[in-house]
């Protein structure tokens, strides 16, 4: 729940009610972050095959979430501030998804023209013959 409201009726002349986290909590988060860093290095020594990237990014995301939620106070921030910051990751993922999907599927284009069906192959042969004419 958010302590702040999107209106002008707030009577308090302070900056509003702010969550002041305990020092102990900040310290625990720091310890967790350092342990996760050790895990990051450790995990990189083991070969999980194609899951390597996924695992590295998963650990990094857990660390990032801790920083965002606790150090950056997002856990106690207003809904709109949370939406703003998290939506930046959402829109960034659009850039990633479409760009990398294009890159990954270009291989299929190539395969379609070389291996898939006899019809396709014929089409490729014709292209080659055509190219030979010039």
């Amino acid at each position, binding site marked *: 729940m958010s302590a702040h409201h999107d209106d002008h009726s707030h009577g308090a*002349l302070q900056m509003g009610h702010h969550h002041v986290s305990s020092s102990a909590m900040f310290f625990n988060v720091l310890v967790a972050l350092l342990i996760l860093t050790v895990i990051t290095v450790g995990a990189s020594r083991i070969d999980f095959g194609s899951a390597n990237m996924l695992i590295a990014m998963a650990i990094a995301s857990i660390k990032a979430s801790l920083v965002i939620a606790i150090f950056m106070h997002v856990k106690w921030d207003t809904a709109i501030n949370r939406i703003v910051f998290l939506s930046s990751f959402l829109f960034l993922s659009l850039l990633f998804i479409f760009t990398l999907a294009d890159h990954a599927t270009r291989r299929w284009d190539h395969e379609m023209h070389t291996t898939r069906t006899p019809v396709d192959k014929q089409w490729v042969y014709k292209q080659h013959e055509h190219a030979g004419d010039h």
Partner: protein
Amino acid sequence: MTTNVPVIDVHAEAHGSGSTHYLNCSKGFWSWAGTLDHKRIGLMYLIGTGVAFLAGGLFALLVRLHLWQPDGLLFKDNVQYNQIFTLHGAFMVFLFVIPAIPGSLGNMVLPLMLGAKDVALPRLNLLSFYLWVTGAVLAALAIILGGFDTGWTFYAPYSLYTDQAVVTIGLAVFVLGFSSIFTGLNFIVTVHKLRAPGLTWFRMPLFVWALYATSILQVLATPVLGITVLLVAFERLYHIGIFDPRLGGDPVLFEHFFWFYSHPAVYIMVLPAFGIISELVSVHSRKPLFGYKLIAFSSLAIAIISFLVWGHHMFTSGQSTYAMFAFSFLTFFVAIPTAIKEFSWVATVWKGSIALNAPMLYTLAFLIIFAIGGLTGVILGSLNVDIHLHDTYFVVAHFHYVMMGSIALAFFAGLHHWWPKMFGVMYDETMAKIACGLIFVGFNATFIPQFIMGSRGMPRRYATYVPEYQPYHMASTIGAMILGVGVAVMVFCFVASLFQRKKAMQNQWGGVTLDWLTPTPPPLENFAEAPTVTNEVYDYSTLDYKAMQTPVR
């Protein structure tokens, strides 16, 4: 943590009388150059973007003149031709179309419509303007350094190899990008935090909704343009290689980055125009908007969908077939919210009490031109058709129907609409209507021939062409000259009104949004008393006819 804090008066002087307003409340160069008042900043934006528009228009006329005959009329070589059309594109896109409406009319009107004293972050607002100025100076510097011939799109790998001032103009675009980001950021905060009591989200005028949706795009898309032009500059400086095929890079990646911004940028440009039209159809038909919520939500829908379709600019780039299917399919979805708007505007005019004054004439011209501009966009969004039409004058005509015919005309409409509010003076209506007619005729005469020759294969960006296309080019050039004359008459009409000082009415058109409920021109902090909103938006039963007949003091 005490709550009963004394309230201290730091503004010693009393509030001015009714005849002091934001234009005459203080004098001198620094009272403008250092102003934090949103209206003064808006006015400076209007002058700046207006000059950029006239410069960009001049470049366009030069290009059209050159194309009068197949082997070219004006320029000494192709490089010069390339430079001039690049200048036209870059000036129009980065210095005019993107900043013009939010920077000038948005700054001027948004806080008024919200019942606020200013935008939420006035210093950042002034910084935005100076970033714009810096960008403009850098762009001018790039011209002095020999110009740039990449087209406004800076496509790699050509932009990496050409020997022209690409780094300088890249820097200009980076700076202009942050100007745009800060304006958007400011507007989002202002809409969230400075709405007058009672002004709920669904009582906000649609111009505010449109600017809000625009701001989301400015904040979320522009940074990617920033990093893209930086990377192009780095490529030229130290050869990273990511866009350079010789070094293992991929120019298609550049196109992905560029259009991730520049497709949403199309909506950064057009959404504020939609907002102006939404206001004007209602005020000048004196009728509540048909489908208010639909128009409001369609702005947001357009903002979101615009992030999913950028690949339709890349159908002939070597992008994978599967990505093209997806992008083409998704592109059609943009047509839905856009059509909702168009139909709602037409339905608003229907059976309204229509006043055929200059702003309304521009609005009606917009409705016609935008229908053509939008529908040809759907044609270009279809994958197979685009393969034929890509990089032809059909594309040029399509986006000019949107950029010039829709956005610039909506800007003119808004300018005529809020001119009496901004300055307290009225322009010569007859002359304004003549200008509107010239612009409408000239515009269509310029670009209809371009649709035809484009569909017949005339490629864009060529300095010379085969003689078969000459009649179309000649028609287009004549049209451009008419358009140029129309714009000149309009500018003269505006400037003359400042000298004639024919007094406008307090509420010239009978608007019922908050911007028309404050004195004309508005005082420094906009409202003598804090407004509280109790009515629904566009409720013309509340219209005070007396304000329509009371001249400005």
